[in-house]
Structures are given as C-alpha cells and as structure tokens.
C-alpha cells in the first residue's frame, strides 16, 4: 500500500486541479460571450409585456439574481459558494423547480445506464479483440471489418437503427422513456419490469459502439504482444500455450485500461446523445430540455455534473490501473 500513496496523491491532486479548472471554465465561458445574457433572458421573460418600468424591474431582478452587476471576482466567489451548497439556482424552463432537484432525478438514470453499458462493452470488446488476435483466420476476417464499421458508426445512428428495428419494426421493446408513461416510480414488480424493458435498447446501443472500438484496440495490442520476444522465449522454454496466452492478454489489457480512461469522455458524450434519441430520462435528455427551454442554469449545472462524472470515472480507472499494473507500484517504490 505504501508504494501507492505517492501515485494516488499525485492523481488526486491532478483531479482537484482539473476540477477547479472545469469550474472556472464553466463560470467564465458563458460570461466571455458577446452580448448581455441578462438582457436576453429578460427579453424572453417579458415577451408580451407592455410597461417599460415592468421590464426594467424584471431586468434588475435577474441582474441581482445572477449577480451580474457586481465585479467578476465577487461573482465568482458567489458562484463557488452556491455550488458548494449544491445550489445551482432555479430552472427557467421548469420554474420554480430548483436545478438541483432536476439533476437529482436524472443523474441516477444516466449513471445506471452508461457505466454498466461502457463496462460491458469494454469487456465484450476486449474479449472479442483478443480472440480475433489469437484465432486469426475466419473469425478475424469477419470481426475486424464489422468492428471497424461499427466503431465508426455515430452513436446516435446506432441508437436510431436499433430503435427502428427492435422498437418500431419488431415491437419488442418500447421506443422512449425510462419506464412506462402510465406508471409512477415505485418498488413494484410491474415498475421494475418496465424499467428493465425500457433499459434494453439504450443499453445495447451504447454497448455495441463500445465493443467495436475496444475490439480493434485489443486486437492490435494482442497481436503486438503475441509477436514479442518473451512469447517466443516462453515457447522455447516449453511453457504451455494456455499460460502464455494468460500473460499475453494481461499485458495487452493494460493499455486498454488507459485507453478506456482517455476515451470515457467521448463515450459519455456519445451516450448522452443516445439518451436523447430514446428520450431516456437521464442527463442527456435533461440537457436537451435545457437547450430547448433556453434554460441557462440547467445547462450550466448539467455540464458541470457531466464533467465531474467523467473526472471521477477517470480517477477510478487510474486507481484500478495502479492495482492491476504492478509496474506502477515498482516505479513509485524507487
């Protein structure tokens, strides 16, 4: 455990620094843009209003609510304070519901959908890639072009096609929502079954995309390892094939873990769009609602939460990586 401390500390510091930067970006980007956001919001809120003093009052109200009449630094401190309390303000489009409340109801859908899907896709993809590298011939010839094609497929395209085939055409699964529209969330078998049925299409559309990319990566890593000197040497030594393959795949797996950490941001981005296509009540759909309703506080909070999710996922992968790659421990002990 001792050897890991420095590594974890290093990773944790990076995590914090990046998170601070994410918050700064989240704060500063919308404020750097030309134009006065408060004026735009006021205009939207006062559509149809005649009295100029009324509009002025609304403008001043929003200016106060966002604190845009104060200097940038004060605004930032206020912003940090609010975030620390979990106060993301009130949603415009679902006024007067707090943004935190909306996020609370949608984040679990996203976490429940995306993380299992990405992990399952990663596992299946790596297994298939390793098999392709080991078996070669027919299996490889079929799997590779299919994987290349699937991994280049846009995530939303895969979602739409699955939806059309299995949702509309075969009518096996419902096409939208996280559970039946006639149900209320409750711990009943009917509700759980409905959730499971609604889960399938979004889940598999994310899994399929992940499989393609991972299989390609794993295949080339495994081929590289299979040609390495230690494999030849082990063969000369007469070590059993099964044992060698165990070593090979363990070594080929390590870069794949790092690869997962680096691609998880893109994967989550794609999966958010897939959520939109299935009207899955997660963060992607919330984000769409925010865009449609020009709901600034909602979008800003959603992007922050998604960033935080990605950061935490990467941090976790880094920690897992440390345990499966003994070289990290060795490096830190030096």
């Amino acid at each position: 455990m001792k050897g890991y401390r420095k590594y974890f500390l290093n990773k944790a510091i990076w995590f914090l620094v990046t998170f601070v930067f994410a918050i700064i970006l989240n704060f500063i980007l919308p404020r750097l843009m030309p134009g006065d956001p408060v004026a735009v919001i006021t205009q939207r809120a006062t559509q149809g209003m005649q009295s100029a003093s009324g509009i002025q009052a609304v403008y001043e109200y929003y200016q106060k609510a966002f604190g845009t009449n104060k200097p940038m630094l004060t605004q930032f401190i206020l912003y940090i304070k609010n975030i620390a309390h979990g106060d993301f303000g009130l949603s415009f489009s679902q006024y007067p519901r707090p943004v935190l409340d909306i996020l609370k109801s949608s984040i679990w859908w996203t976490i429940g959908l995306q993380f299992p899907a990405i992990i399952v896709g990663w596992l299946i993809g790596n297994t298939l890639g390793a098999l392709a590298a080991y078996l070669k011939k027919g299996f490889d010839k079929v799997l590779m072009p299919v994987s290349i094609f699937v991994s280049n497929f846009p995530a939303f395209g895969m979602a739409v096609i699955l939806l059309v085939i299995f949702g509309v055409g075969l009518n096996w699964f419902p096409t939208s929502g996280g559970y039946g529209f006639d149900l209320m969330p409750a711990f009943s078998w009917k509700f759980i079954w409905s959730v499971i049925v609604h889960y399938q299409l979004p889940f598999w559309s994310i899994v399929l995309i992940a499989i393609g990319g991972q299989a390609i990566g794993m295949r080339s890593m495994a081929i590289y390892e299979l040609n390495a000197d230690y494999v030849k040497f082990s063969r000369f030594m007469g070590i059993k094939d099964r044992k060698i393959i165990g070593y090979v795949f363990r070594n080929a797996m390590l870069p794949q873990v790092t690869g997962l950490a680096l691609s998880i941001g893109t994967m989550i981005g794609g999966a958010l769009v897939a959520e939109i296509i299935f009207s899955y009540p997660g963060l992607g759909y919330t984000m769409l609602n925010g865009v449609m309703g020009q709901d600034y506080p909602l979008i800003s909070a959603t992007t922050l939460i998604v960033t935080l999710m990605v950061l935490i996922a990467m941090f976790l992968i880094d920690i897992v990586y440390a345990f499966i790659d003994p070289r990290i421990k060795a490096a830190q002990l030096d």
Partner: protein
Amino acid sequence: MKHTIRQVFRSPNFMFGFIVFVLLLLIVILYPIFVKYSPLEIIGQGTFFPPGVYVNVYDSIGAPRYTLNLDDAAANRIGSKLDDQERLDMKTWLVADGFPEDEIDISDTAKLMEQWENNYDPTVRIPGMTYANQMYYQRLNASLQGILSIEGVTIAAISAEMGALEETGTIPQSDYVNINQVPNVRVLPLGTDNFGRDVLTELVKATSVSLQIGLVAGTVATLIGLTLGLLSGYIGGLMDDIIMFITNIFTVIPSFVLLILISFSIGQEHRGAVTIAVVIGFTSWVWTTRAVRAQVISLRNRDHVNLSKLSGHSVMHIILADILPYIASYVVMAFILQISSGILSEAGLSILGLGPRTTKVPTLGLMMNWSLIYQAEILGKWWAYFPVIVVIALITFSMNLMNTGLDQVFNPALRE
C-alpha cells in the same frame, strides 16, 4: 516521397477508403451542376412524402394518351387497393361460407377476386356473424365492385354560361400517358422531409456543408495542435510546462461538454456553420498537440537537427525544414481523423439543438435533428433519417480506413 505515395496508394485499406471518399466528393460536386433545385426550397405541402416519381395529375389528363391492352392492369389496380387485412377478411368469409380453405391464396389477387365474385352473396347469413360484420362485408363488396367496373372516369368542366357541370371527355381504364410527354414530373428519389423539402438535394448540400465544417474544424484543430506541439516539444522548458499543463487539463475535461457550453453561450443568433466549425476546432486540438510534441521531442536531438543548429539556421528554419517533414505523416493522419470527428461533433451538437442556425444551410446534423423532432423514426419515414446516417457513417468509415492505411504504411510494425 514518390515511393511513399506509391506505397500509400497500394494499401488496400487506404484505397478503399479513398475511393469511397472520392465518390462522395464527386457526388457532392457534380450533383448541383446537373440538378439545379434549391436545396432548402419547400416544395411539398405536408410532411414526409414517400420517395418516388411525382407526375402532375392535371398535366397527365391533358397529355397525349395511348391505349395499351395489358392483361394484368385490372389485377394490379385491385391489388394496390386491397390491403392485407381486407384479403384476410375475404378469406374468413369464404371459409365460413363453406369454401375449401386450402384453395384460397390471398396473395394471388386475380384468383381471390374470382373466387369472391363467384361465391359472395350479400343475402347469405353466416351463422354467428354480427350485423356490423355483415354490413362491413357488404361495403367491402361494394367497393370491390367499384374497382372492378370497366367504365372510365368522366372529366367534367364547369360551363361558363350555365354554371353547371358539362362532360368534356372520359378516360378509359386502358389509357396511358408517356411520362416524357407530361410537362411536370418531379423525381424525388428520397421523398421530402418534414418541411416538404426534397431530401436528396438537401442531403447533397448538407453533405457538402458538413464536409466543409469538418475541414474547417480539422484545419483549426490541426493548426493549434501543431503550433502548440512544436513550441512545446522544440523549445521545451517553461513553455513546455505551461503548454502541457493546459493540454493535460483539456485532455481530461470532455471536449463534448466544452462544445455544449460554448455553443450555448454563443447564442442562437450568432451560431453560423463556420462559427460552429471553429468552435469544434478549438475544442479538439489536444491529441494533435500530444502526438506532435512526442514526435518533436524524439527528433530534437537527432544529428541532422543538431547540424542545422550548428550551421546557424534560425529556429523557424529548423522547424520548417528539419522537423516538419518528419512529422508530416502524423499530422496528415491526425488531420483526417479531426475532419471525421468534427463532422460527428457537429451532428451530435445539432441533435442537442445547438447546431448551426437552421434557416441558411442544411447540415447532416440538422437534418438528423429535424427528422428526430418530427419523429420520422417512429413514423417509419426511413428516407428522412436513414440516408443521413448512411452518409455520416460512410464519411467517417472512409476517413478511418484511409487513416488505417496510412498508419500501416508509416508504421511498419502494424503491417500484417
């Protein structure tokens, strides 16, 4: 150089991707030359007209007529009017009437009609059949008789003096018009979209705009990535630390999130196609920077670079003449990938409703967005969304294949 290019064009992966891509490009360039329809013109009154040849009914009445005696004309006519449910209902009645079931084939329209005509009798009471069902069969029979009649359609015009309808001619069932002699025929190979716009024309334009978006995004990203990578790798020191710090942060913060944040902040009014492209470019330079930096660091202490330094060449000259040629292949590969990911980013953004402003130009993402908003996928209007997905997949597929091919040429370790 010549040798390398020849080798690149011998790679099957690269060639396949290249051919697909060039074909797409040719279509995008040639189609507007031959078909001069405006891509965003709203021609259809209504949503999602199915693909096909649209012949003007008014003109076809006036066009020269030819009589063709075709045996299967009547059967085709009935076949197109009779849906599967009605065929099944007819079969049910016939079977209930005592007709042997195994002689009925509901897919053979002519035979089914013959059996129906010979056996159906509206006065027969089938035991157990409700009155509503009986009436249904009588209506069905009446409509079949209507189709079966051999009289033509009468054309009438309102007479100027009387204000009454006056017969001006009849169209027998055996009359045909030659489509070439009808002045107004519009071919809509992919039907129309939710606004009533010609999907194919729109798709070609959208592909061209999306490719341009990809190109601009790729160029911006590659330029930023290349500059930062060169500075960081060649100059090193504090410059390297600062650039790598920024790069590391942007590697971790998902570019998709940045993209959403920036696009939303720009506001609907300022979001043109070019703006979106530049924004995409500004959020996706990280990988190029890392790759270029790693390459430059390995090149920095090579003999020819050191010689160049000793000869007193300027930093600019060294970078341009001694370093750039060695990393050119990486940059080109990264550029290709940036283009394809730029196109995907635009599509993803547009589906979120953060794409370019809608009124000026179509993009692949916007077409996808509109067809999703109008639920084309649920309504089964495949022509509104499927071609878009295919084009996006073809673009990214061809670019990735080209990239794989280049990779195999420049990275001998990857060759099989």
